[in-house]
């Protein structure tokens, strides 16, 4: 690897990390603002103009709060829980193509940290590890509410992972690759996958809501039944990590949705603009972020509209509705693909 490559990679990694933290930070502000607007209120508007500095104030509050570790808790695991939650949340951004390539001094730099050829499986693996953060934290608190919350979280996440994986398989069948970048490259201009996979998108989106523990699937932390769920015993920045991880997850899953179904950094009439390669790339990155912010807004919109499921309903939806629909989606996709590629006429 050349020095220029290495420098670009280092800067890019730091940029992705910083941006995901920044977006998560302002997602907390956006969440409060959006919630307020949906409820005919104004939301935070004291810290700075329009309350823009509210996340900083929240951060300072989180850091200054007293750190409480329950006496009968498993101390090491109690600290490990939020760490894992934060770690897995930050890890997913690695395989997401944040833009096309930049050409600097005749050299091409791809705006992606690493293009693993099993990118989707990587995302999937990291998401499946994310359960441990919640599970360990809930168990280590030595509190019944926490334990119940973490059990709910893990069973929910395992259940919805299946339907999520199944809905991704249809996409993988269509594009013939597991690399996220190639999937994005496979939907140039306005030929987004959502046009061919509307059912798959719906399933994936519902599962993404469940995986990020957002309403209507926020049973792990539903305050009416479980106080705070798995983070009942947490305080200070450890609680902050849990909350922060949720927002990073929201950001990343929006990015994944955009990559898989909404063409990533592609946008219609991309060629007819007649701009240079670099400008188009940067414009694409901007468009990518606009799409991501739209989905973050949709996440919040849904949160403040739909009440949460009962637990048996949640399991029924996951296993009896989403999973069969995902299988159906795979079968339909397979049939259409075979028909399009004229493979029925082949003799096996």
């Amino acid at each position: 690897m050349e020095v220029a490559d290495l420098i670009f990679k280092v800067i890019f990694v730091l940029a992705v990390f910083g941006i995901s933290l920044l977006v998560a930070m302002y997602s907390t502000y956006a969440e409060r603002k959006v919630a307020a607007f949906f409820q005919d209120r104004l939301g935070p508007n004291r810290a700075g103009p329009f309350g823009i500095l509210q996340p900083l104030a929240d951060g300072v509050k989180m850091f200054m709060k007293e750190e409480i570790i329950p006496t009968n808790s498993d101390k090491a695991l109690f600290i490990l829980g939020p760490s894992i939650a934060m770690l897995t949340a930050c890890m997913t951004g690695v395989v997401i193509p944040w833009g096309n390539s930049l050409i600097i001094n005749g050299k091409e730099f791809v705006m992606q940290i690493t293009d693993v050829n099993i990118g989707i499986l990587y995302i999937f693996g990291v998401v499946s590890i994310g359960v441990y953060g919640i599970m360990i934290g809930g168990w280590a608190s030595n509190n019944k509410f926490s334990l119940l919350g973490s059990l709910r979280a893990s069973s929910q996440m395992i259940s919805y992972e299946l339907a999520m994986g199944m809905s991704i398989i249809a996409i993988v069948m269509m594009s013939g690759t597991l690399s996220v970048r190639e999937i994005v490259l496979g939907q140039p201009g306005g030929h987004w996958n959502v046009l061919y996979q509307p059912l798959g998108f719906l399933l994936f989106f519902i599962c993404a809501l469940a995986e990020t523990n957002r309403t209507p699937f926020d049973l792990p932390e539903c305050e009416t039944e479980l106080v705070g769920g798995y983070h009942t015993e947490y305080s200070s920045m450890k609680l902050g990590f849990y909350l922060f991880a949720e927002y990073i997850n929201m950001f990343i899953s929006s990015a994944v949705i955009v990559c898989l179904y909404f063409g990533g950094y592609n946008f219609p009439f991309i060629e007819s603009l007649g701009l240079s390669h670099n400008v188009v790339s940067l414009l694409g990155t901007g468009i990518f972020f606009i799409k991501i912010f739209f989905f973050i807004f949709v996440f919040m919109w849904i949160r403040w509209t739909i009440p949460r499921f009962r637990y048996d309903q949640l399991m029924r939806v996951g296993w009896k509705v989403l999973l069969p629909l995902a299988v159906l989606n795979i079968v339909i996709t397979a049939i259409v693909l075979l028909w399009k590629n004229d493979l029925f006429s082949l003799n096996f």
Partner: protein
Amino acid sequence: MSNYLFYILSFLSIFSALMVVLSRKPVHSVLYLIFCFFTIAGHYILLNAQFLAAVHIIVYAGAIMVLFLFVIMLLNLNAETEPHKPLIIKGASVVTGGMLLVVLIATFKSAAMSVSSPEFNSDLGMVESLGKVLYDQYMLPFEVSALLFLSAMVGATMIGKKEI
């Protein structure tokens, strides 16, 4: 570079495997086991078998171990509640384990170390080659194991149903 990685990973996997047995709390054992799976996935990546590594993590660390953790958390096993085993059982287990060790050493000594062949294809572990091998060369075993999984799924559904 990858040599050092191999040694670090090997040390970590052996250490965590030992800790699975040695740690007093069952939950810690499970977590060490998960960590052990991760280091093994690291070994797969060193062998350029990325697909295998990802599947290993998704299936073992992501799904099966969660269920393990589930059961152990619900049983609420603690170091204090663990029944005290009599000395004779401890002795017997030491003897059995030692015998297993002897057998293993004997097998490994007789087995010749296979040196990686010169025509080793580094793309062997990639998804494409793996898929081609599975669906061409090993089509029948693959389909048979798929049937096995199907029957297991049907069986699980039958057990799960209250009334048939």
